[in-house]
């Protein structure tokens, strides 16, 4: 019989070990799944985790890792602040869409003018758009006590409909021969979020993601607001006695995560994607939840987790084209990762002991 014994404080060793353990377990289970689908498990895992980094075509895949990783890290950093304090914004996908719509809207309003101020203005609009979308659940929570989980999620569906409406209506390309979708921002130099160094995949979104990591690290370790966030998560009652205002915390956490998600959407629409279309959103907002947890809600951890998750995206694409591995299998693989992570997390807070039958 197994028995759980609460540790006096979370184990440091296991804090670092659990993500690794979860990844290993997911690989094992994922391999089983792949062999169940009739693929060679070792080859599949190798294709996903090795090929994008070290194969002979890696020069092509490595930039892709930055492109996929940047929005994930950017969104996950924002989410992690809230998750730490027990404020659950799970509508990042919606904020991502609205950020992209606002940024693209600004760009298309100025088209075809060329000016240096357009891109900064787009960045501002994207961030503000995401922020405003996240302020809806934040305001409703602080004013009426409404559950922010459900409201932020409902707004994802609203944002998706808005995206459809925009790409078929307001933002539709007038020279697009009636096809849905906006003008391609990649062909509009003032609005294009181009690679900073050609062939590296390094665009402004990657820079923003790195800045966000540093910002979050400083905030959480060196700043009062960061301390309040951690305090509220660990001991809500103590936080209230210490004079932490829950209202301000909710507004701050949801606002920051919304703005970062909006920025991620903007950088995506102005760069790698280029077009506002019905299926523009690729689920980054939801995958970022996995990234945040896999990174243990720690900025540096999230950076690494974002890289790993980007690897599953890029490697998954390769496996899809080379081995015919279905896309859904990769999605399932990512979901499994979160499961294992939550399961092995037990070991950080509890010791597992064998128990003999004792007389009671």
């Amino acid at each position, binding site marked *: 019989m197994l028995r*759980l*014994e*609460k540790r006096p404080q979370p184990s440091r060793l296991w804090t670092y070990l659990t993500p690794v353990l979860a990844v290993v377990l997911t690989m094992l289970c994922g391999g089983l799944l792949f062999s169940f689908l009739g693929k060679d498990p070792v080859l599949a895992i190798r294709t996903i985790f090795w090929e994008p980094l070290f194969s002979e075509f890696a020069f092509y895949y490595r930039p892709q890792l930055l492109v996929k990783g940047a929005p994930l890290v950017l969104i996950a950093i924002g989410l992690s602040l809230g*998750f730490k304090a027990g404020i*659950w914004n*799970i509508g990042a996908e919606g904020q991502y869409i609205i950020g992209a719509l606002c940024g693209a809207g600004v760009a298309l309003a100025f088209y075809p003018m060329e000016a240096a101020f357009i891109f900064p203005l787009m960045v501002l609009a994207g961030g503000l758009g995401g922020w405003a979308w996240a302020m*809806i659940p934040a305001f*409703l929570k602080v004013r*009426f*006590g*409404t*559950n922010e*989980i*459900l*409201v932020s*999620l*409902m*707004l*994802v*569906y*609203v944002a998706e*409909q*808005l995206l*459809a*409406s925009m790409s*078929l*209506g307001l933002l539709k390309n007038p020279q697009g021969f009636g096809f849905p979708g906006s003008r391609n921002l990649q062909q509009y130099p003032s609005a294009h979020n181009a690679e900073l160094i050609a062939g590296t995949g390094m665009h402004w979104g990657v820079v923003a993601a790195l800045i966000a990591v540093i910002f979050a690290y400083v905030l959480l370790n060196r700043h009062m607001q960061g301390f309040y966030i951690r305090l509220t998560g660990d001991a809500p009652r103590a936080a209230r006695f210490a004079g932490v205002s829950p209202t301000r915390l909710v507004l701050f956490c949801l606002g920051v995560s919304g703005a970062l998600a909006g920025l991620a959407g903007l950088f995506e629409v102005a760069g790698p994607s280029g077009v506002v279309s019905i299926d523009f959103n690729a689920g980054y907002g*939801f995958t970022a*939840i*996995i990234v945040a*947890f896999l990174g243990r809600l720690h900025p540096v951890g999230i950076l690494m987790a974002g890289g790993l998750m980007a690897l599953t995206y890029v490697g998954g694409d390769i496996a899809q084209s080379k081995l015919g591995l*279905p*896309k*859904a*299998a990769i*999605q*399932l*693989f*990512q*979901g*499994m990762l*979160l*499961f294992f992570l*939550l*399961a092995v*997390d*037990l070991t950080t*807070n*509890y010791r597992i002991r064998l128990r003999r039958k004792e007389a009671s």
Partner: protein
Amino acid sequence: MDLSAINPTLLLASLMVAATPLLLAAIGELVVERAGVLNLGVEGMMITGAICGFAIAVNTGSPILGLVAAALGGAVLSLLFAALTQYALANQVASGLALTLFGLGLSALIGQGYQGIKPPSFPKADIPLLSDIPFLGGVLFRHDFVVYLAIALTAVVWWVLKYSRIGLVLRAVGENHDAAHALGYKVVRIRVAAICFGGACAGLGGAYISLIRVPQWTEGMTAGIGWIALALVVFASWKPWRAMLGAYLFGGITVLQLNLQAAGVAIPVEYLAMSPYLITIIVLVIMSADKSRAPAALGRSFHASQ
């Protein structure tokens, strides 16, 4: 625009059909939350149920077997959540999200070969005599049996929670798990059973969508109904009959919105399609004024040694 094209009998009848998956999922989640567990994975369990039911129904040719398989599928998936939250003591919000992400991936994977197939049609259970009543007969008594099953389930859950010993124990676990434990009730076991029941209900609701309401399989076809069911439980203040009222209200909104789309109202389709979600938010705002009804131990994990 031609509003006269909307037939009130058909509208009200399809309201009952649209409300049934919501009602099933909401009743299941209501029981789970009354036991003090917040399972945010309803969407994942629904979509898994939808594809399990669909696949079995197509392969065996029996829609009834499909429904059974859907309930089983939902329950098995919910066991994962139970293992995480009740035995590994993981955070319930995070685990619920994990369940939804996992369920969406799993259903997409299973459903690959099933796109564009028509499932075996479901027998209508016209109630003799009653279904011949003009208007009312068409609205109330010409449905498949799952519609009535959902209503019956509501009644049973209401009765069990209010009048039976099992219901009392379940509520005790949900209000104060330490006290329930001290009285000798198996908190974890009761919660696992409740989670399983919730999973089965959600799975059934999902299969109702893929087998009867739509009826076909598309990826992500539940489109947030699981989340609306979660909101319904709050709307209902954790009371079964109010959950039913809420489900019928939302079913009505969905159906009306679809009918307005078909009638060619001047409002763009996208704005009509977002209305159920917006109304859910408004309802949540109105209902969140009174939090006193929520089970006191909702969302807290239980470990006997603490």
